[in-house]
């Protein structure tokens, strides 16, 4: 039953095109975000693993 329904959908070839578009748009969006992202935010995120040790004796080497 389902098989007939799927094979009978008209313009089924549009689906691969839609998925390609989703794919391309997503990656373009991601790269734009990565280029434009706020430096302060990135620094904050980078430091996160070290925030659980308030009294880190050596201190973490900021590079």
């Amino acid at each position, binding site marked *: 039953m389902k098989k007939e329904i799927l094979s009978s959908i008209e313009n089924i070839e549009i689906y691969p095109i839609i998925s390609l578009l989703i794919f391309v748009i997503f990656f373009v969006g991601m790269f734009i975000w990565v280029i434009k*992202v706020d430096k302060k935010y990135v620094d*904050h995120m980078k430091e996160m693993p070290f925030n659980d040790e*308030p009294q880190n004796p050596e201190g973490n080497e900021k590079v």
Partner: protein
Amino acid sequence: MPGTTLEQFSYDNKIVKYFGVATIAWGLIGMLVGVLAATQLFLPEANLGNPYTTFGRIRPLHTNAVIFAFVGNAIFAGIYYSMPRLLKTPMWNKALSWFHFWGWQLIIILAVITLPLGFTSSKEYAELEWPIDILIAIVWVAFGVNMIGALIKRREKHMYVAIWFYLASFVTVAVLHIFNSLALPVSFFKSYSAYAGVQDALVQWWYGHNAVAFFLTTPFLGLMYYYLPKAANRPVYSYKLSIVHFWSLIFLYIWAGPHHLLYTALPEWAQVLGTVFSIMLLAPSWGGMVNGLLTLRGAWDKVRVDPVLKFMVVAVTAYGMSTFEGPLLSLKNVNAIAHYTDWIVAHVHIGGLGWNGFFTFAMLYWLWPKMWKTTLYSTKLATTHFWMGTMGILFYALPMYVAALTQSLMWKEFTEAGRLAYPNFLETVIQIKPMYMLRAFGGLLYLSGAFLLVYNMVKTAKQGSFMAEEQDEAPALKPHVDEPGEFWHKAWERKPIFFTILATIAILIGGVIEIVPTILVKSNVPTISSVMPYTPLELQGRDLYISHGCVGCHSQMIRPFRSETERYGEYSKAGEFVYDRPFLWGSKRTGPDLHREGGKYPDSWHYYHMVDPTSMSPGSLMPPYPWLSTNIMDHDDVPAKIRTLQKLGVPYPEGYDAQANADLTIQANKIAANLKTAGVEVMPESEMVALIAYLQRLGTDIKKTTASNP
């Protein structure tokens, strides 16, 4: 912070300790079973003379123990330590944490019991039968709820990239596990796959590949992004790269499954998709590796002295090596040589021993002194462990590469007269026997190193004092106020549930596009009119074949190469597998392909070969199965099996379940009589008769008429 009150809370170290101990305990058992399996490949007597410890059954025991027990517990230990600290809150519910812990150990124990007993679905890395599958789903969801609950209660606004990897792993494994395990139960211990033949193969390798991706890779990448900076005491090289790494990896990974089925009867378009996405995966994988290694820039002096960093460097390098090798193996021309050989075994062990094993060791060496508030008992011992492990990996992998190339080239070699140069499969196996010995030595070395870890950890714990709860404080999370100009990603990533849904969509796109058409569009599986359902006796024989794990060494998929059609016969066609639930194509040929085994030898040959393989094939490495001729097979469940298969659409005539056992007896008596004329006395009710019935049926249907593959 002036003007804000700090909230007090504590991190639960006890659960981390338990998961850590479970990691090591199961790790040792899993590796020990691995060494036993490796030994059986050059010394069949090492099967200890019973079905429970024979290769076909302990191979899945080894893979399950190492993947789900060793690596699984390591993931949980790593997450239960890092996630609360990154979110500034304990895990959501302690009782749930313990339910997760004991539930997972129970699943492992059930696997340790059922797999040697032969209760298996035979689908690689998803062998456990349906009641255990349901338990896995429940425990896994408990783990997910615990994580998402912690996210909702967090005191840190943003989610560090490690947590993205944890979340994506959780949702993807849930989706994969549920869809791949769909089956219709016959009884408490037996079920038939909801998919058949080609479709079952596609779903299985969509699962199998992504089990590697989302159980062995993404959770560990999350752990890498937390523990590597911690151990090196410097932040990750590029946070931006880690974001690109995350999204590209989860977007691409899910598509690559069909590369396990190149040159098989899988539709061509699905094979092409698998290859293309596998090649693309190289970019994010290497991006991740580079990000990990460059985190150590300027700290390489520490690598010289710190065993934790030594383990991590080799782990990340091994990740890079196996993710380079993966796309390489997905190229059709490389795959033509490497598939079914020990190359794949080497490849997974670079990943397993190098990436997962070494990273786990590094994490444990780092966690133990932290949680016991002390220093590592012996750096020297840890360094010795490191070198034993590294040598172990080399002794394991290098002989496997040599074995793979040697054997593959022997399979494909033709004489000047146009005949196979090595028509006897066994010749190609005996040739690589020394390599199998070296491999077992490598495994043993690696295992011995792990014992040093145990000693070192026990001593470390003894010299320190365990801190079950670790106090911390942080301001409560303020309700969010929208800032103008905020980018979408930052906003999404603040909303964990929305983020989880987004990650799910990313992985679902690939799965849906690949799998749904293959299952729904009729033209993908051309039917062959002469292919008929198995007779009741053959079905029983097939279930025995499944239960003994024969698929671990024998493929049933002849690829369309001259070297294969010469050796085995006509290549396999998609339409031949429509009644195969589950599919039994296999992924490794330690013995020859069996798809055209039917009618090749007389029944008595199979009898003697099963009782003592060396009597028919001198030098054979196949373990003997003498119990098949004395074990009486209970056929009471045949009617239930027939009814289950009818529900799945296998066209047995209506009411056939009532007649099935009568037909079975007729066929069994015929085979027993046939054996008697050859001088073999065997009961018609014996397992041997059922297995012979199945083997003699294999691949014979298309010989009844001419078949074509469109």
